[in-house]
C-alpha cells in the first residue's frame, strides 16, 4: 500500500494546498493590497509548472493515476490557460468582484487541479472525479457576477447542461463497467477484445454506451449537436472565465476523449466494425461542428458569442485529428490545443480588457482601435489570423497537421469539409480586423491593460509566432506523448 511513487502527485497536491492558501490569504489580508491574491495565484501556477518538470513519469494507486507524457503535455496546457486566465483577471478583480477575490482565484486553481487529475486518469472513476472537479468550480465561476443577470443565467445554463451531460456520461460509463467488469481503461480494452474474439460480435449495449459517452463528453466539448449552451454561457460568464472554459475545460474534454476512445475503444475505430465504429460518428459530429460553428459565427455581433461559435468550429478541427486515431493524429491534436491556448486566451484577454474599459462586447465598438491602441489592434489581428489558420502563424501549422492526419487516416471528405469551412471562417475573423483598421468612425477608446494582462498578451503573441515558425520542439513533444497509446 505504501510502496508507491507518491512524488508524481506532488504538483497536484501543491496546487491544491496553494488554492487553500489563497482562500486563507483572502481572509487574512482583507482588501489592503488587492493584487497580492492574483500574483500569488500566478506564482502558485508557475511553481506547479516547475514541480511538474521535476516530478513526473510513473504510476500511482495501481495505475489509477499515471503521469505519462500525454498527461504532462496537457497539464502544461491547463496550467498555461489558468495562468493566463488569472493574468487577465486583474482588472475585473479590482472592480467587479472586490469581495470575493480569494474565491475567484482559488476556484480557478481547484478547477486546474481537476483538469490535471483528469489528464492523468487511466481509469473511469478517477476520470469522472477529475471531470467533476473541473466543472463544479466552473459553474460557480460562470455565475460569479452575482448581481449581473447575464452571468447568473450563464451559470444556471452551464450547471443544468453540465450536470445533465455528466449524468449521461456516467450512464455510459456504468454500462462500460457492466460490459467489461472493470473500470481500468486498459483492462477494459483487453476484456472487450477477448469477448469480441471469442463470440465474433458485441451486443447493442456497447453501442449505447459509446453513444452516451460521446454525448457526455460532447457536451463538455460543445460538439454539435451538444453545443447549445456554449454561446450563452460564453457570453454571460466573466470574460477570463470564458477564456478558461474555452481552452482549459475543452482541453480536458479532449484528453478524456482520447483516454476513453483512442486508448480504450481503439479497436472499434475501423470499417470492419461497421456498427461499432465510433470514428465515423465522431467524424460526422466534427463536420457538423465545423459547418454550423463557422456559419453561425458569421452573423454574430457580440465578440464573445462570435468567439464561442468559433470555438465550436475549432473543436471540430481538433476532432479531425482525433478520429484519425493515429500517432500523427493525437500529436496534431496536442499541437492544435497548444496553439489554440495562445490564440484563444489572447483574443479573450483583449476582449476582457476592452469590455472592462468600455462595458461593451459589440464587435462594432472595436472600430478604429488601430488608431488609438495600435499595439493591441495588432495583437488582436495576430490572434484572429492564427485562429483562422494563416501562415506563418501557429494556427496554420496546427491546421496543416490535423488535416494531414485526417488524410492519412482516410477521412478525405472530412478534410475537404474542414478546408472549405476554414475559408468561411476567414471572413468573420477578417471582419473584426477590418473593423479595427478600416472603420470610418472616429475612435474614442484607448486601452491600458494592467501589467499581468500585458504579460499574458505578450506570451500569447510570442507563442503563436515562435511555435508557428518553429513547430519542431512542440511537435516532437506531442509525438512523444502520442506514443503512449501504442498504435
Amino acid at each position, binding site marked *: *500500500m*505504501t510502496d508507491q511513487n507518491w512524488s508524481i502527485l506532488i504538483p497536484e497536491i501543491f496546487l491544491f494546498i496553494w488554492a*487553500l492558501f489563497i*482562500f*486563507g490569504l483572502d*481572509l487574512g489580508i482583507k482588501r489592503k493590497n488587492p493584487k497580492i491574491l492574483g500574483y500569488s495565484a500566478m506564482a502558485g501556477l508557475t511553481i506547479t509548472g516547475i514541480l511538474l518538470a521535476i516530478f513526473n513519469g510513473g504510476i500511482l494507486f495501481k495505475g489509477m493515476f499515471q503521469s505519462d507524457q500525454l498527461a504532462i503535455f496537457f497539464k502544461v496546457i491547463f496550467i498555461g490557460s489558468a495562468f493566463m486566465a488569472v493574468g487577465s483577471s486583474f482588472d475585473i478583480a479590482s472592480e467587479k468582484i472586490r469581495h470575493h477575490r480569494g474565491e475567484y482565484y482559488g476556484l480557478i486553481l481547484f478547477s486546474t487541479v481537476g483538469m490535471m487529475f483528469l489528464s492523468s486518469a487511466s481509469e473511469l472513476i478517477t476520470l469522472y472525479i477529475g471531470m467533476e472537479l473541473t466543472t463544479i468550480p466552473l459553474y460557480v465561476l460562470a455565475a460569479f457576477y452575482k448581481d449581473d443577470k447575464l452571468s447568473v443565467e450563464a451559470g444556471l445554463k452551464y450547471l443544468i447542461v453540465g450536470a445533465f451531460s455528466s449524468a449521461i456520461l456516467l450512464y455510459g460509463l456504468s454500462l462500460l463497467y457492466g460490459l467489461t467488469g472493470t473500470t481500468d481503461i486498459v483492462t477494459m480494452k483487453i476484456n472487450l477484445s477477448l469477448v469480441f474474439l471469442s463470440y465474433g460480435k458485441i451486443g447493442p449495449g456497447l453501442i449505447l454506451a459509446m453513444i452516451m459517452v460521446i454525448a457526455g463528453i460532447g457536451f463538455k466539448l460543445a460538439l454539435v449537436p451538444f453545443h447549445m449552451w456554449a454561446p450563452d454561457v460564453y457570453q454571460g460568464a466573466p470574460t477570463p472565465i470564458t477564456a478558461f472554459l474555452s481552452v482549459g475545460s475543452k482541453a480536458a474534454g479532449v484528453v478524456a476523449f482520447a483516454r476513453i476512445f483512442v486508448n480504450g475503444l481503439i479497436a472499434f475505430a475501423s470499417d470492419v466494425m461497421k456498427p461499432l465504429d465510433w470514428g465515423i460518428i465522431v467524424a460526422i459530429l466534427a463536420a457538423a461542428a465545423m459547418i454550423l460553428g463557422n456559419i453561425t459565427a458569421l452573423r454574430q455581433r457580440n465578440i464573445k458569442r462570435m468567439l464561442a461559435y468559433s470555438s465550436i468550429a475549432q473543436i471540430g478541427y481538433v476532432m479531425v485529428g482525433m478520429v484519425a486515431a493515429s500517432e500523427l493524429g493525437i500529436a496534431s491534436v496536442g499541437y492544435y490545443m497548444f496553439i489554440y491556448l495562445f490564440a484563444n486566451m489572447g483574443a479573450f484577454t483583449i476582449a476582457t480588457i476592452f469590455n472592462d474599459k468600455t462595458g461593451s462586447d459589440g464587435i462594432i465598438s472595436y472600430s478604429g482601435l488601430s488608431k488609438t491602441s495600435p499595439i493591441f489592434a495588432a495583437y488582436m489581428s495576430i490572434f484572429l489570423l492564427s485562429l483562422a489558420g494563416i501562415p506563418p502563424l501557429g494556427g496554420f501549422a496546427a491546421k496543416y497537421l490535423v488535416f494531414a492526419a485526417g488524410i492519412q487516416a482516410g477521412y478525405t471528405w472530412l478534410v475537404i469539409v474542414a478546408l472549405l469551412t476554414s475559408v468561411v471562417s476567414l471572413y468573420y475573423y477578417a471582419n473584426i480586423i477590418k473593423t479595427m483598421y478600416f472603420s470610418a468612425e472616429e475612435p474614442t477608446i484607448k486601452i491600458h491593460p494592467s501589467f499581468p494582462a500585458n504579460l499574458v498578451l505578450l506570451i500569447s503573441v510570442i507563442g503563436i509566432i515562435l511555435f508557428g515558425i518553429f513547430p519542431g520542439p512542440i511537435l516532437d513533444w506531442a509525438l512523444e506523448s502520442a506514443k503512449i497509446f501504442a498504435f
Partner: protein
Amino acid sequence: MNEYAAVLIFLFVGIGVVLFTFFLARLVRPSNPYKAKNQNYECAEPPIGSGWIQFNNRFYIFALIFVVFDVEAIFLFPWAVAFGQLGLYALIEMIIFIVILLFGLFYAWKKGVLKWV
C-alpha cells in the same frame, strides 16, 4: 425468509397497538368539541397567519452547508468498516480529508455565512 417474517409480524403488531390505543381512547374520552379546541396549537397562543409560510431564506444557506458536510460523511462509513485492516495509513488520509472539510467550514464561518444577520 424467516427473519423477514419476524419483521412483518413486528410491523403488524406495531400498527395494531397504535390503532388499538386510538380505539380505546375513543371509547373512554368524552366528546365535546368547541371552537377554541379546534384551533391550531401554537405555544398556547392563538396562531397568526397560515402554517404554510415561506421560510426565511437564511435557513437555506445553512441547509446548503449542511448538505455538503452531511454527504461527505459517506466516505467515513467504508473507512470505518475497513479500519481494522487499513491501519495508520488510512487514519492519516482520513484526518487530511476531515481537515480539508473543516477548512471549508472555517472559511464559511470567517466569511460570515454562519452569522444570523
